[in-house]
């Protein structure tokens, strides 16, 4: 096993491991076959598993996700790729109204074990329609599990859990992390969905982050450590199941919370988390709760503009600094 693996490779590796174990796992999506995916996140799958298990599709997001649903209802475990998470909007009916509801509205008759994988988030200069962090869209819909790993090993472990899950999972792979490296995952590595990770311990302030915001939070924490502020960083990993207990556990120690989200402030997932904390964790709080989220604008193209919009190490550090002085 190599010493390090990229996040991008981890995606393909995570899928491949499950395809090896379970013949019911099949992939479909645009350019995922011989081309290996436009982000190369399915590289090698077509070669290893062939056209019978790795299916190129037309540009038909509704058909992709709808067909995945139909297949999942009838014995398969499809893994559908929606190339950019912005395009989830093109098949939103399936994510919002069909996949998460069919089990409930049939009184539990039908199970939908599928994964919708998608490249999420900004930072690459792709502009307003190819850069969004849309994990908060999925959070508006009860019945979807939502995974958003921050490290290659978590990609593999959470992919295993997602594909083995009998529930539908939306799996957000972060474009800004694809080139990042990390330790590879041991064989049969499974990271159960719904377990946040405390990725840095600290006593003064709790930073909760997801996906690409985890390294941002960690960098801010390091910078703040030099200033004598001891930051605990929680990688939430999943939005559903939402690991509230780990967050409250951290707060019991720090009494101060900052949430770092890439999605816009309005309607962002941090709102849900903070509202739980402001209720169940109210007694733990010594200071206001802050959210560092994207500004409520579409994502601009130019780097110098995008930096103004999304959370950065500077912004997170400034917020924490301010809060610890409260």
């Amino acid at each position, binding site marked *: 096993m190599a010493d390090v693996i990229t996040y991008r490779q981890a995606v393909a590796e995570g899928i491949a491991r499950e395809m090896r174990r379970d013949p019911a796992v*099949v992939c479909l999506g645009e350019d995922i076959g011989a081309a290996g995916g436009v982000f190369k996140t399915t590289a090698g799958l077509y070669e290893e598993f062939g056209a*019978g298990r790795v*299916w190129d*599709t*037309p540009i*038909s*997001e*509704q*058909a992709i*996700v*709808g*067909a*995945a*649903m*139909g*297949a*999942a*209802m*009838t*014995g*398969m475990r*499809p893994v559908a790729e929606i190339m950019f998470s912005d395009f989830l909007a093109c098949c939103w*009916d*399936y994510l919002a*109204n*069909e996949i998460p509801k*069919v*089990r*409930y*509205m*049939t*009184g*539990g*008759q*039908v*199970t939908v*074990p599928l994964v919708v994988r998608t490249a999420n988030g900004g930072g690459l200069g792709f502009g307003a329609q190819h850069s969004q962090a849309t994990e908060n869209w999925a959070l508006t819909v*009860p*019945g979807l599990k939502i995974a958003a790993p921050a490290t290659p090993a978590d990609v593999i472990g959470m992919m295993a859990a997602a594909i083995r*899950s*009998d*529930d539908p999972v939306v799996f957000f792979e972060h474009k800004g992390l694809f080139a990042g490296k990390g330790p590879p995952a041991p064989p049969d590595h499974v990271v159960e969905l*719904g377990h946040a990770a405390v990725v840095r311990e600290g006593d003064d302030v709790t930073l909760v982050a997801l996906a690409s915001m985890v390294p941002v939070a960690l960098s801010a924490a390091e910078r703040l450590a030099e200033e004598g502020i001891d930051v605990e960083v929680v990688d939430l990993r999943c939005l*559903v*199941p*939402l*690991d*509230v*207990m*780990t967050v409250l556990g951290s707060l019991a120690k720090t009494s101060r919370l900052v949430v770092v989200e890439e999605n816009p402030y309005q309607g962002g997932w941090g709102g849900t988390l903070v509202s*739980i904390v402001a209720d169940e964790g109210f007694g733990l709080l010594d200071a206001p709760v802050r959210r560092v989220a994207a500004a409520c604008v579409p994502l601009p193209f130019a780097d110098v503009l995008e930096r103004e919009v999304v959370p950065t190490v500077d912004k997170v550090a400034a917020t924490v600094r301010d809060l610890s002085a409260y």
Partner: protein
Amino acid sequence: MTRVPQPAVGSETGTGPGSEAAELLALYEEMAVIRRTEKAAHDLFLSGLVKGTTHLAAGQEAVAVGASAALRDDDYVFATYRGHHHALARGATPEECLAELMSRASGLCGAKGGSMHLTKASANMLGSYAIVGAHLPLAVGAAWSARLRGTGQLAVAFFGDGATNIGAFHEALNLAAVWRLPVLFVCENNLYMEYTPIADVTAVADPAADRAPAYGIPGETVDGNDVVAVREAVARLAGRARAGDGPGLLEARTYRHYGHSRADPAAYRPAEEVERWLKHDPLDVARGRLAELGMPAETLVAADQRAEAVVQAAVEAAKKAPAPDPRDALTDVWADGGARWRT
């Protein structure tokens, strides 16, 4: 509803008239049960025992029953909110359907689904969907799955004329054609969407069949009120599809006897048109065919009586069934049976 014996594909002509008549009688009786179930649903709605909405399929029975007769028991069926006839034709009982409409715990979906979502998964009737056109890609996926698993199953999506103008229709048909999947698209063209004639908003005359060439698949039209014609057309397309020749599209011309939903009096339909279609009632058409085959009138009366009795008993049983336990509102979201979304 007890399923009628399955005629082997293409075998319709090989059997003697006696057996053909017996088969048709069974189809007739299935239709008679559906007709009465829909009437019961209508009456129960008016008397306040069915809440929400219903979309009755009275008048369209021959599509469901005819198609079903040409399918294997393990084929997959996907229907719309106007799907009572499909649930019944695929083996749901009038009692479990009506119980669902009446919000009883014994309903097909435990009263979580309602009229628009009748589903009998144990019979591979994989649901009724209330977003127009949404289930077509699902049927494509089920057919893909059948192919992957090598089971020889078909998937059939039934949908209305109005669904032919929505994007999912286009995506589903193209994907099915490209992958040559064993899936049939059966349009029940009843001339109207909710209150607007399909002809007013569609660029071609046959909203489904005229689109088939855009996907390089066979598109046929059929008298949707003739259960035998439907059965034959579906059998033909099913045979092709099962043989690996890819999807087929069938547009069945039919008519709904009630309004679009609830108590819609359907005043937007010309009286003359209604009259003409009522004269071409699928039950009458089947009766005519049975008469031609020499079926005695009393046999038909007996079938009607049995149908009546089944539905009456179903209504009574559903009325007596208990309401769901309120706590069941928080079950069945996840495969573990629960609804927990956080720690």
